[in-house]
C-alpha cells in the first residue's frame, strides 16, 4: 500500500439505510479496490463500506454459465419482450437514474413494477393516501423537536445515526444541548438496545398498537377512555394521559415509526392512526410524523414510481396506462398466485425474504437479476448480471427517508456496469424487438403511429 495509492473522499454518502448520511470521509485503497476507513459512519455503515470491495465474479451468468454483459442483455431482452406478464421488482438499493429506466421498461412492455416498499412501509403509503400526514425534514426535527417519540422500531441497531445525527443527541438551532433539550419516548413490544435512550418507555402488548394510538387520539380530543385499556394494551390510562399532556405541551413534537407498526396486526390502520394522531395534535402545537425507512434509496423508488405513474408502488401497465392496487400488483402477492411469467429483480433479494409460495413461483419462471453480489435470487435466475455498487462505484441520486435528494460520491471505479447502464441496454434492445412501446390492442390513436 503506497501513499499515492490512497484516495480520500470527503462528504461521501452512505446508502446502507434510509438515513443516507452524507458526511462520511472515506479512505480508499485504489489498487486494492477497497475502502479501508469510513470516518463518521455508524457500525452498519462501516460494514457496508468494508464489504463492498471488488470481488472476482463473472460479468453475467446465463443459466449458470458465464456470459458477457452483451449476451446477457440479449437474453434478458428476449425474456422481457416475449413475456405476457413480466414483473420488475426491487429498486430500493439503486440510484434514481436506474429506477427511472426500470419504470420506463415496465411501461414499454406493459408489465408490472413494484418496489420493496410493498413489503416494508407500503402500509404507510396507503395510510398517507387515506389521511395525509404532517411531516418534516430530519433537520427540522434536529433543530426544533423537544419531544421525540419512536414507535415500533429499534434505531440503536437499525438506524444508529437517527439518534446521533438527526433526532436525539444531535444539537440544533433550538435544541443547543441536544438530548437535554428533548424528551425521548420509545414505544415497542419489547425492550431493545434503543430502550436506554428513552426517558419514557411504553411496552405495549404485541398486536395492540392500534388500540394505544386510538386511545391517545381520543384523549387528545378530550374524550373519555376506559381504564380497561391497560388490560388490552399493557399501558395504563395514567401513562397515556401523561403522554398526551406532554404531546400537547411540547413546542415541536415528532413521531418516528418503523415496521413494528406497519408489518404487524393492523398494518395501514396502525400507520393511519399514527399519522392521524400527529395531525390531531396540530390543533395544540406543532407536530410531525415520519416513517423510518430501511433501504438506502427506497424513498427514491417511491418518488420515481410516483412521479412517473401517480402511484408509489404496486403498479401495473398491462392496459396501456398505470393502475395501482396493493395486494393485486404487489410482487409477493402476485408471485404467490403464480401470475407472473417473467421477473426482473433489481438490487433486491426476494428469494431470501418472500413467502415460500412466491419463491417457488420465481423458480418456475425466467428470472433476471441485477446485483453486485451473489444472492439467493441470483442463484435461481436465468440471467444474472453483476453490477457496480451504488454510492461506492456508481454516482447518482438517492433520497433520504425524509424525501431529501442527495448526490452520491463514488469511492472507486468498478469494472462492472451500473444498473442504469444495463437497464438502458436492455431497454434499447426490447424497444428494437417490439418496434417501440407495446401498445395493447384497441388503444385509440396508438396503432398507426410509428
Amino acid at each position, binding site marked *: 500500500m503506497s501513499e499515492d495509492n490512497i484516495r480520500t473522499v*470527503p*462528504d461521501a454518502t452512505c446508502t446502507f439505510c434510509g438515513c443516507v448520511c*452524507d*458526511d462520511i470521509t472515506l479512505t480508499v485503497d485504489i489498487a486494492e479496490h477497497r475502502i479501508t476507513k469510513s470516518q463518521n459512519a455508524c457500525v452498519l455503515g462501516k460494514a457496508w463500506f468494508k464489504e463492498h470491495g471488488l470481488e472476482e465474479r463473472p460479468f453475467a451468468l446465463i443459466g449458470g454459465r458465464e456470459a458477457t454483459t452483451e449476451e446477457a442483455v440479449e437474453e434478458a431482452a428476449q425474456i422481457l419482450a416475449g413475456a405476457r406478464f413480466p414483473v420488475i421488482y426491487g429498486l430500493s438499493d439503486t440510484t434514481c437514474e436506474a429506477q*427511472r429506466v426500470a419504470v*420506463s421498461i415496465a*411501461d414499454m412492455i406493459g408489465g408490472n413494477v413494484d418496489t420493496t416498499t410493498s413489503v416494508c412501509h407500503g402500509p404507510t*403509503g396507503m395510510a*398517507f*393516501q*387515506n*389521511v*395525509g*400526514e*404532517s*411531516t*418534516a*425534514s*430530519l*433537520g*427540522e426535527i*434536529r*433543530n426544533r423537536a423537544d419531544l421525540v417519540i419512536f414507535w415500533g422500531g429499534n434505531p440503536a441497531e437499525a438506524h444508529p445515526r437517527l439518534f446521533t445525527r438527526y433526532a436525539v443527541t444531535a444539537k*440544533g*438551532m433550538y435544541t443547543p444541548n441536544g438530548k437535554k433539550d428533548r424528551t425521548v419516548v420509545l414505544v415497542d413490544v419489547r425492550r431493545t438496545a434503543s430502550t436506554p435512550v428513552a426517558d419514557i418507555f411504553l411496552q405495549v402488548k404485541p398486536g395492540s398498537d392500534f388500540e394505544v394510538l386510538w386511545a391517545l387520539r381520543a384523549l387528545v380530543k378530550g374524550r373519555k377512555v376506559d381504564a380497561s385499556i391497560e388490560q388490552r394494551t399493557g399501558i395504563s390510562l395514567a401513562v397515556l394521559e401523561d403522554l398526551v399532556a406532554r404531546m400537547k405541551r411540547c*413546542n415541536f413534537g415528532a413521531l418516528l415509526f418503523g415496521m413494528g407498526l406497519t408489518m404487524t396486526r393492523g398494518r395501514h390502520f396502525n400507520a393511519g392512526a399514527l399519522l392521524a394522531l400527529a*395531525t390531531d395534535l*396540530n390543533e*395544540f*402545537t*406543532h407536530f*410531525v410524523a415520519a416513517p423510518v425507512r430501511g433501504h438506502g434509496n427506497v424513498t427514491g423508488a417511491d*418518488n420515481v414510481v*410516483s*412521479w*412517473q*405513474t*401517480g*402511484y*408509489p408502488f404496486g403498479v401495473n*401497465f398491462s392496459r*396501456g*396506462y*398505470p393502475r*395501482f392496487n396493493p395486494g393485486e400488483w404487489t410482487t409477493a402477492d402476485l408471485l404467490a398466485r403464480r401470475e407472473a411469467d417473467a421477473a426482473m429483480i433489481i438490487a433486491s433479494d426476494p428469494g431470501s425474504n418472500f413467502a415460500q409460495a412466491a419463491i417457488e413461483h420465481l423458480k418456475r419462471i425466467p428470472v433476471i437479476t441485477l446485483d453486485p453480489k451473489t444472492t439467493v435470487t441470483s442463484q435461481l435466475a436465468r440471467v444474472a448480471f453483476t453490477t457496480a455498487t451504488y454510492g461506492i462505484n456508481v454516482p447518482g441520486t438517492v*433520497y433520504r427517508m425524509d*424525501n*431529501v*435528494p*442527495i*448526490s452520491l*460520491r463514488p469511492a472507486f471505479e468498478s469494472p462492472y456496469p451500473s444498473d442504469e447502464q444495463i437497464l438502458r441496454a436492455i431497454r434499447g434492445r426490447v424497444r428494437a424487438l417490439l*418496434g417501440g*412501446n407495446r*401498445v395493447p390492442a384497441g*388503444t385509440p*390513436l*396508438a396503432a398507426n*403511429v*410509428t
Partner: protein
Amino acid sequence: MGATLRIVNGRVYDPANGLDGVVQDVCILDGRIAAEVPPDTKTIDARGMVVMPGGVDIHCHIAGSKVNLARKLQPEDHRRDVHLRTRFTRSGTGGTVPSTFTTGYRYAALGYTAAMEAAVTPLGTRSTLEELQDTPIIDKGFFILVGNNVLLFRLLQEGRLEEFRHALAWWISATKAYAPKLVNPGADEMWKGDRNANITTLDQKIGPFDLTPRKVIGAFIQAANDLGLPHPVHIHCNNLGHSGNYTTTLETMRIADGRKAHITHIQFHSYGSVAGKTTDNPTSMAREISAYINTHPNISADVGAVMFGRSTSMTADAPLAYMLRAFGSPKWTNADVENESGCGIVPFTYQDQIYTNALQWAIGLELFLLSDDPWRMVFSTDHPNGGSFMSYPKLIRLLMDREFRKEEMAKVNQKALDNCGLRDCQEREYSLYEIAIITRAGPARLLGLTAKGHLGVGADADITIYEEDGDKEKMFSTPRYVIKDGALIIEDHEFRVDTEGRVLHVAPDYDPGIEQVIQPFFEDFYTIQFSNYAVNLDYLHHHQVVPTALQAASAGAPVGG
C-alpha cells in the same frame, strides 16, 4: 435541429411585434424564426387557422417534492383520468396532479411550450430537476423559495445587505433556479416555532427575528432589482385567502415603491370583508387592486383564477393549507423543510353554489376584465390550486365570449355576484390579440424570456396553430399543430415526436467569499453537507442560462432567452 418549415395563409397573432391577425408567412430555420427559408421547404397551409407563439405559463406547480407528495396522496384522482402510452410516448395518469410525462404532453397538447414551476425548496431542487427531465416537450424553469430562509433572515436582521444580496445570488445559482420566490414571508418561523401561528400584518415581528414582513419584502425587491434578474421577485403575499386581505396586498405593492415586483395569483389576495355568522365573509376588492396595478407600471401580476371542480391546494404557505383543512378536506398534508420553508397540501373542490368559491371565481374574471394593461395582468390558475391547467381553454372562453360568461354567471351563487363587480364589467370581451398577450407574449416578457412569446426573427420557433372556431374553448383545447424549437411535435392533432425540452435558469454573479458565510451555518443547522448542497449541471440535461441584465450588458449582447 436543422428543421425548416414555412407556415402560410394563417392569421398571425404576435403582439410583441404588433401583428394582430395579419395573414403572413412564418418561416422556421434551425429551430428559430427566420426571415426566409429555401423554396423547397415543407409548408403548412394554415388557411382558416390562427398562428400564435407557444403558450408560456408563468406560474404553475408541476414538479418537485410537494407536487410529488400531492401526486402520491390522490390515487382516486388518477384512477379516473388515465393517459395511454403510444408507440413512442409514455403512459401516465392525470387528475389535478398528473404524472410528469402526462403533464408535459398535456401542456403541449394545449399549445403550451414553456412553464414555470413556482415553488421549490432549495433542499429539494434535485427532485424538481429530475421530475422536469421527465416532463417532456416543454421548456421549464422554477422559482426558488427564499422568503423564509433563516440564514437570509439573519443577514438581513444584522443589516448585512451586501452579503444578503450575494447570498441570494449564490442560492439562485447553486440551485439553478430561474427567479426568487417569496411565500407568506415570515410565516414559517411562526408556523414551526410558535405552535402553528401565522403572520397577520406586514409590521408584525417575525418570531425571534428583529424583522417584519415589510422589511423582508423590501429587501428582496431591492436585491432582485440590484442583481438585474430577468424576472423580479415573485411574491405570494401574506394573508392569502383571508377576508380583508386586499389591504395587505396593496401595502405589499406599495413597498415596491417604483421598483419592479411581481404579485402572483392576485385573485387570492383581493378580498374585502363583511360580517358573517361565524367568520367574516370575503367580498371583492378587484376594483381597488386593479386600479393600483393599472396605474403602477412597476407592478405585474398573474391572476390565479379559480375554476369550479376539483383542485389541489399545494403551497409553501403551510398555515394557509391548515386553514383550508377546516373546510372539510380529509387529507391535510404538511412538510416542513429545515431552515427554508414550509409546505401544505389539501385536495379541494370549488363549488359554484358555495358563496366563497363563487366569489373567488368571479374575482378572477373581474381582475381580467378590469385590467387596462394585459401585458402586466397575465393568465394563470395557479395550477392546480385554482384549477388544473386543463381548464385554461374554458377560462379563455369565459374571457372571450360574454354570452357564455353570462350563462355561467347564472349558474353560480348569486349572493356572491352581489358582492363583487363582475356584473359591471359584463361588456368586455378579450380579443385573440389580448389572449395572445396574457397567455404568451405577456408572461414571456415578464419572465425576461426575450426569445419566447413572439414570432420575430431569431425567436425560438415555439408555435401553436389553432383552427378558428366560434367556440373558443374548443378552439384552444385542440391545436392542430404544435411546433417546439422548429420541430413539428403535434401534426393534425397527433403527437409525431417526443422531446425533452430545456431547463431555463439564471446564474447571477456573486462574491465567492459569501460561501465562507454560508458554510458555517450549514454545519450547524443543516443535515446535509454544504459540499453536497449545490446542484451540478448533470441534473439539467438540455439547459439554457438566461443572463441577468448586468451579465448581458457586460457581454455586450442583447439579453437572450
